[in-house]
């Protein structure tokens, strides 16, 4: 996922910690006899480690022996590994997985179910499977400050249509030419902004521009760790402009027994984007270990009871 490179330094810093943590935690299956061994991998950014830990710990609680290969690399590393059977499972993102496995054919849409179905049609011949997509989503999103939200009582992107001409949009310099950005906001939602400010894609410039009021609407990623801290609110993409990058487990068919599927679907069913923001914040900003954060989440949400 190219859009994760912004937090590469964080990832690098966390790599040591998380790998070390993964080595000592995780394999704590309560049962005496293992139901089998499952190897869970994650991409090289914190959110993927958290998701992999969620899946892994839920499976371990169910009696499987779980091996972790966290921070394995980009999709270019992880996908071949699952194809060759070196790993059994990784947390994917529906639209991005689809566009990877179909070699960028542009089949992904804003509909998570349809996108996942399409993804499965490509995965089948590879002996892989995408399970039910979660409601939790890590995709391009447009955020406003809490003050702006309160001033215009905004909840979703359609709310911006009547007042867009009073607001300045900030995003990467490519925004005016990309269908998911300014042109898409115009055609799908009918939003025309007062002005556009070329900043960066969800980086320090966007944060600074929010802070000093240069922009009122900015492009962010929906599960960003610091959204809460910055007082930013993501507006709901009610007309599905963005591709559905919902969290979805990609698993080898031979491993995807009904029991495993049930465990993973249960985790995904409970997970929300807000949960991701909180957990990403705990790992990226408070520097907690991904396995501890995942464990605390599963305990809080009664997965271990």
């Amino acid at each position, binding site marked *: 996922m190219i859009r994760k490179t912004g937090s590469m330094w964080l990832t690098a810093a966390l790599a040591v910690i998380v790998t070390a943590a993964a080595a000592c935690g995780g394999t704590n299956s309560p049962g005496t006899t293992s139901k089998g061994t499952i190897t869970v991998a994650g991409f090289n950014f914190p959110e993927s480690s958290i998701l992999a830990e969620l899946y892994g710990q839920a499976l371990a609680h169910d009696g499987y022996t779980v091996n972790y290969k966290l921070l394995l690399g980009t999709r270019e590393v992880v996908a071949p590994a699952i194809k060759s059977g070196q790993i059994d499972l990784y947390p994917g993102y529906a639209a991005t997985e689809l566009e990877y496995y179909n070699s960028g054919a542009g089949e992904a849409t804003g509909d998570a179910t349809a996108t996942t179905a399409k993804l499965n049609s490509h995965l089948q011949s590879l002996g892989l499977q995408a399970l039910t997509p979660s409601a939790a989503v890590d995709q391009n999103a447009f955020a406003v400050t809490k003050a702006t939200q309160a001033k215009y009582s905004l909840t979703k992107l359609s709310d911006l249509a009547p007042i867009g001409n009073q607001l300045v949009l900030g995003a990467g*310099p490519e925004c005016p030419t990309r269908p998911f950005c300014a042109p898409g906001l115009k055609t799908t939602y009918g939003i025309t902004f007062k*002005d556009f400010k*070329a900043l*960066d894609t969800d980086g*320090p*410039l966007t944060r*600074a*521009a929010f802070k000093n009021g240069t922009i009122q609407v900015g492009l962010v990623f929906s599960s960003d760790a610091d959204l809460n801290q910055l007082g930013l609110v993501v507006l709901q993409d009610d007309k599905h402009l963005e591709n559905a990058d919902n969290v979805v487990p990609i698993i080898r068919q031979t491993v995807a027994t009904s029991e495993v599927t049930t465990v993973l679907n249960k985790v995904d069913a409970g997970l929300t984007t807000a949960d991701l923001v909180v957990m990403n914040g705990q790992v990226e900003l408070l520097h907690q270990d991904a396995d501890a954060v995942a464990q605390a989440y599963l305990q809080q949400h009664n997965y271990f009871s």
Partner: protein
Amino acid sequence: MAILESVMRWLADPAHWQGSDGIPTRLVEHLQLSGESVAIGALIALPIGIGLGHFGRFGNLAINISNVGRAVPSFGILVIAFQVFGLGDLPIVIALTALAIPPMVTNSYVALREVDPDVKDAARGMGYRRMAQLFRVELPLAVPLIMAGIRTSAVQVVATAALAALIAGGGLGRYIVDGLAQQDYTKEFAGALLVAVLALATEASLWGVQQLLVPRGIRLLKTPASRRATTFKTA
């Protein structure tokens, strides 16, 4: 050559000459950032260089310190200043001012040191006080070198001001950064061309200013002796 043609078409497109992303707006932003930086740089650098050159002390120290300034990359200063001061023109002006100072310090120092000691002696002998000697004898003689320093600074600053776009600033660099992000290489090339042309235009116009400022006596020194003689007669 295809790229040159498309760049020319891009430059000729009236749509690119209006609005907040039009060439006139970006040009004014670029000149404003550069002008502010060179002006602030001159206010800092010229008194230092001229003072040290006049008194002939600490010259090596000043030149060495300002040369260290040359070694610090503008992009580095830009990013650090952005971290400290946030979004806006201030970090850009700081980075460009730091770039503008060294050539002006060095040149004005050398310019004052190079004034013929005999001329200074003569001035003192004619009863000029220190300040009068500096302003009425030394500075006019030092103008060509001082102006060369200002010119060097200004051209460097105009060329480097394109970096402003990297921290969301305006100016002609916007086309370069946006063109790259949008994979619109025509725009990128056009931006680079505009910056280069503006730098050359800066050089040329400051050269013109220099011609106006240089005292006639020095200008005459550079003309061939034969013509100089007749000019003196008629003057």
